[in-house]
């Protein structure tokens, strides 16, 4: 474990150095992200201020959904940024070099590119989330524990999604669109998935399952989930992780190396 932590640290420092080579780009990128975040926040605020509620959720509750989405989304991007560069590893044949190394390939291809820019964005998101969590006044230890448990479950599902993208990358070399479709799909849950009509709501909750990822933690916090739904979501989280690991194993068995 200590060895892996040291490796992770080394990869992260390396990633930071690479980002630092593009200072102007970093500024543009941060500015763009900030604008996008603020404008959508403004849109949600102006909408819910005028309508009083959004599908039954108050202004503060809607913002807790929004910031929970942002925290989970930013955390996954921060941790798994290397996945976005995976296609090149496959098509150039460099993946061979990763697979023969004496450590698990995930430390390189999944976690090897900590995104410092997302780390910087995470601070304000967490602060705003905490503020609005306090505003809704449901912060008992039970609610908070359930919320955190479901957020961890979301991160497990997000990890599974990224491993599936890696596996598909090995099998088909298609990474760029797959990862962006994941991003676009998850964006559907920037507001509670209750806005969608059936059967789309069930589809985005249980099949894809971005509703469990982004909406369920806050529903748990608001005492809106019974134990059956909580258990289903935890089982789905575990099952998606096991499936992704199985797919990754299958992909490696079929891998025939490219380019080198």
């Amino acid at each position, binding site marked *: 474990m200590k060895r892996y932590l040291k490796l992770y640290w080394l990869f992260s420092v390396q990633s930071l150095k690479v980002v630092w080579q593009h200072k102007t*780009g970093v500024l543009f990128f941060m500015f*763009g992200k900030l604008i996008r975040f603020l*404008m*959508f926040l403004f849109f949600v605020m*102006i909408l819910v201020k005028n309508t009083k509620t959004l599908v039954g959720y108050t202004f503060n509750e809607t913002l807790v959904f929004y910031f929970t989405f942002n925290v989970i989304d930013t955390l996954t991007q921060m941790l798994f940024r290397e996945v976005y560069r995976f296609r090149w590893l496959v098509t150039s044949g460099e993946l061979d070099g990763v697979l023969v190394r004496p450590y698990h390939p995930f430390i390189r291809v999944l976690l090897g590119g900590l995104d410092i820019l997302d780390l910087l964005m995470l601070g304000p998101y967490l602060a705003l989330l905490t503020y609005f969590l306090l505003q809704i006044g449901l912060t008992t230890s039970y609610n908070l524990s359930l919320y955190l448990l479901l957020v961890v479950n979301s991160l497990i599902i997000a990890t599974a999604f990224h491993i599936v993208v890696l596996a598909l990358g090995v099998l088909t070399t298609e990474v760029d669109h*797959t990862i962006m479709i994941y991003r676009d799909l998850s*964006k559907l849950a920037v*507001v509670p998935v209750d*806005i*969608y009509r059936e059967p789309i709501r069930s589809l985005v909750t249980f099949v894809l399952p971005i509703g469990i990822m982004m909406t369920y933690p806050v529903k748990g916090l608001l005492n809106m989930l019974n134990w059956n739904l909580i258990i289903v979501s935890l089982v789905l989280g575990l099952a998606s992780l096991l499936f992704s690991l199985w797919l990754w194993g299958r992909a490696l068995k079929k891998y025939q190396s490219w380019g080198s």
Partner: protein
Amino acid sequence: MRKILAIAKINLAQYLVYRLSFVLWRVRVILSLFLTFFLWSAVYQSRLSIFNYSHRQIMTYILLIYVIGDLVYSSRVSDLSIQIRNGAIINQLLKPFPFLHNLFTREVTDKLLNLFFSIFEVGLVILLFKPALFIQTDILTILLMLLAIGMGIVISFFISFAISLVAFWSAEVWGPRFVFMTLITVLSGSYFPLDILPTLFYRLLLLTPFPYFTYLPTKIFLDGFSFQYLGMVGISLVWVVLSYFFARALWRKGIREFSFFGR
């Protein structure tokens, strides 16, 4: 004309080679429509009107701005920055066909293809969810809307073209392009009609090129012909001229200073 058609055919053939990429791209685009469509539908569940827009008007707005957005923003001009950085632009410049004509033909093919798919997708949404829609029948209004769409396409092209030309001097084109795309997403009315913003902010926004890409044509369609909108089309004409001269100056300067080894 034969050359133009040949380039258009080559462009289409390229799309057919990368069919999966194109289909996945369309999936991504339609997902963004789903969010705004259902969000606004949810808002109107318990009320008839909000921000002076009826349910019918806002549904028309969301679907129409989606189609117009596809027509205005779909573009291959971002490839130009890659061609400049890797020197491939030299091959294009040496061909016996003006480079900018080639670029224009590729743009038209790309827009027509995307327009076809976006009309199909919106048709599917209408068929599946049956939203109440507003139909505009006034010919003058439709003509003004088409004029505004044309202006939006031209402004968007020249700004995007100018951003690609940054590649003549810097490798970091992705930064300005990311900001431009973000600003387009949030300031051109894709999520909401811009006139729901506070008045001062809305008026300031009208001085920028963003409202003229998709918001103005959609708004003209909804509200009908008026001299206020004619004036706004006038402002978009100013942006057409400004963006044209800016892009032309950058192109001339860039192409004069450009050099490349190894191809």
